[in-house]
């Protein structure tokens, strides 16, 4: 058991407020949980030493070298957490009609009851850090879009952590029927810190959510959050997850098809160098018939970096006519880099179409020859093709401004990676 965990539990035990029912549940679950080790399947490749070593002294004030990112042309409403504290002045925001944003602590009792009912309901099986977030979270930021409302500006959630900070943030996003929204989650900072940032999304019938999670914490920043989605009938989710590695970065994505004929697409790519680690656990629950899921995961790992991908698609007995595809392609740029990938299909329905594949990508020889036949050197062509491997998913990002912002950063990081 981690000393840090004990300390965190003790800290949470003294608190009593509207969140107490959920906190108490989490605390009692934590009391029974075994601290994951390398023998725990879900953490087999991901060492928790950076958490165990995490210093417990909280910082006096927020300081960080990271600041809110300027993204040219990206029209958004900014909601910012610094060291886990929500610092945006909501009263100063002008919100489009049909969009509401509030802290649950300041809402009325009926809203709080509603938030409690939804709390961790998409992903009831909590792993240790999910439980920790449940226990340590101080408030829930609630974003709601009314039925039939398309919100034009995107919502950008930024979480910045400074040295020695801990952040346990929680956001609930609810899209009404036929609503449309874009949410972009940004996790930043490279200083020794620890965060569990979870966002839960309830996507109503016929609603559409365009989602991004930029897990760009690097260095000593420990990041252990997740994005959970529940899709009602004919809901449409288009999610892009981008990961840089750090000493320990793990993201849990859960997508639950709760209504029929929903469509979920997730593109995820990570680019790892040095001794960075990035671990994505993506779980899709097809609980009802006629759902569609498409997942594309691409990983480039250089030097001694370590990537973990676990993609589970669970098709329940009643989920007939499910279409599910999981495609994972990986590129190792050094023989000391490591990519651990495990696609898992669990199918209990008999009339479904599912495909999954995980490959270590090889350079496309025809493309290489084509480029050489135009005078491009073999080495340069290889670099272009390797970056193209990731860039292909950047090209698929529905938001052009975000794509144009991300591409040069990825290119920059990629150009520093060496083939060994």
């Amino acid at each position, binding site marked *: 058991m981690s000393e840090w965990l004990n300390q965190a539990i003790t800290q949470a035990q003294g608190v009593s407020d509207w969140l107490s029912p959920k906190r108490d549940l989490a605390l009692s679950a934590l009391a029974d949980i075994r601290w994951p080790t390398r023998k725990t399947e879900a953490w087999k490749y991901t060492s928790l030493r950076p958490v165990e070593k995490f210093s417990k002294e909280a910082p006096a004030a927020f300081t960080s070298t990271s600041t809110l990112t300027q993204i040219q042309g990206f029209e958004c409403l900014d909601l910012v957490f610094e060291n886990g504290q929500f610092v945006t002045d909501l009263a100063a925001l002008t919100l489009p009609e049909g969009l509401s944003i509030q802290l649950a602590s300041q809402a009325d009792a009926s809203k709080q009851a509603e938030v409690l009912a939804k709390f961790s309901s998409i992903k009831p099986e909590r792993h240790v850090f999910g439980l920790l977030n449940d226990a340590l979270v101080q408030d829930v930021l609630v974003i709601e879009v009314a039925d039939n409302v398309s919100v034009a500006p995107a919502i950008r959630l930024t979480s910045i952590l400074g040295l020695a900070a801990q952040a346990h943030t929680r956001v609930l996003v609810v899209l009404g029927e036929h609503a449309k929204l874009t949410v972009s989650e940004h996790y930043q900072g490279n200083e020794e810190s620890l965060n569990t940032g979870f966002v839960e999304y309830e996507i109503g019938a016929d609603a559409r959510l365009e989602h991004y999670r930029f897990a760009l914490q690097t260095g000593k920043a420990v990041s252990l959050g997740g994005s959970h989605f529940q899709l009602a009938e004919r809901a449409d989710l288009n999610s892009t997850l981008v990961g840089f590695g750090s000493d320990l970065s793990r993201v849990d994505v859960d997508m639950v098809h709760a209504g029929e004929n929903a469509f979920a697409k997730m593109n995820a790519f990570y680019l790892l160098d040095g001794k960075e680690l990035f671990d994505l656990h993506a779980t899709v629950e097809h609980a009802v018939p006629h759902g569609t899921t498409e997942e594309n995961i691409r990983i480039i790992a250089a030097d001694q970096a370590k990537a973990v991908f676990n993609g589970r698609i669970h098709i329940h007995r009643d989920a007939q006519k499910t279409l599910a595809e999981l495609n994972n392609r990986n590129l190792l740029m050094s023989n000391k880099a490591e990519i651990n990938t495990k696609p898992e299909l669990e199918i209990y329905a008999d009339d479904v179409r599912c495909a999954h594949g995980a490959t270590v990508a090889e350079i*496309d*020889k*025809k*493309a290489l*020859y*084509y*480029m*050489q*036949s*135009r*005078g*491009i*050197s*073999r080495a*340069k062509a290889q670099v*272009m*093709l390797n*970056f*193209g*491997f*990731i*860039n*292909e998913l950047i*090209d698929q990002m529905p938001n052009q401004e975000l794509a144009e912002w991300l591409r040069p950063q990825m290119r920059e990081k990629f150009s520093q990676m060496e083939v060994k």
Partner: protein
Amino acid sequence: MSNTNTKDTSSLLTIKDLHASVEEKNILKGLNLEVKPGEVHAIMGPNGAGKSTMGYVLSGREGYSVEQGSAVLDGVDILDLEAEERARAGLFLAFQYPVEIPGVSNLEFLKASVDAQREARGEEAVSSADFLKLAKAACKQVNLPLAFLKRGVNEGFSGGEKKRNEIMQMLLLQPKVCILDETDSGLDIDALQVVAEGVNSQRSNDRSFVVVTHYQRLLDYIKPDFVHVLADGKIVKSGDASLALELEAQGYAWLQPSDEEGQNA
């Protein structure tokens, strides 16, 4: 044709007794071809004669081995060079099946190609802004929407768009010798005209074309100086443009007797 080139009456491309195989199967069996500056040569012939192989062997595709013979481009024996070095020496192959490269934008690909060739010639790289202007002009010349510069190389392009993209590359790279490998296949008449106009705009006294085609139709638009019939790995007949019309009328049946024995009736 008179050649008043400073390098004696040198040809731009001289292929001598070229034998080449792929997967141990002999395809080219003594190909000879001499192309002088400014000339357009058409290579026609039945399927399987080795027309595409000629382009692949000359451009340096992996898996094609040269058993004997030589190919000299503007004084440089290219058969020992890497594919990129052959391109830098001035060879351009317009592919029959251009390759799709998702994730690499057409513009980036074009600029990398031009940069590499300029660098090899000791010239300075073109600035991104200037290159964009050149690329846009080339794009317009082949009637492709400018958005095609941003898309992945050939990604999702129709057959005709891919061929026009090949011609756009040729316009930007300004090669000495262009081999067009069945560039007309799969083109409607409008696309064919665009391709032919692109080629004709590049005809000059110091650039030559080898036009590989199955049909005479393309040669109505790109007038060849010479027409050759390639059959079973070598040139079996040469003539002027009228030969193409003859072939169109007669087909290649007259070649049958010269086919390898055992290939049979």
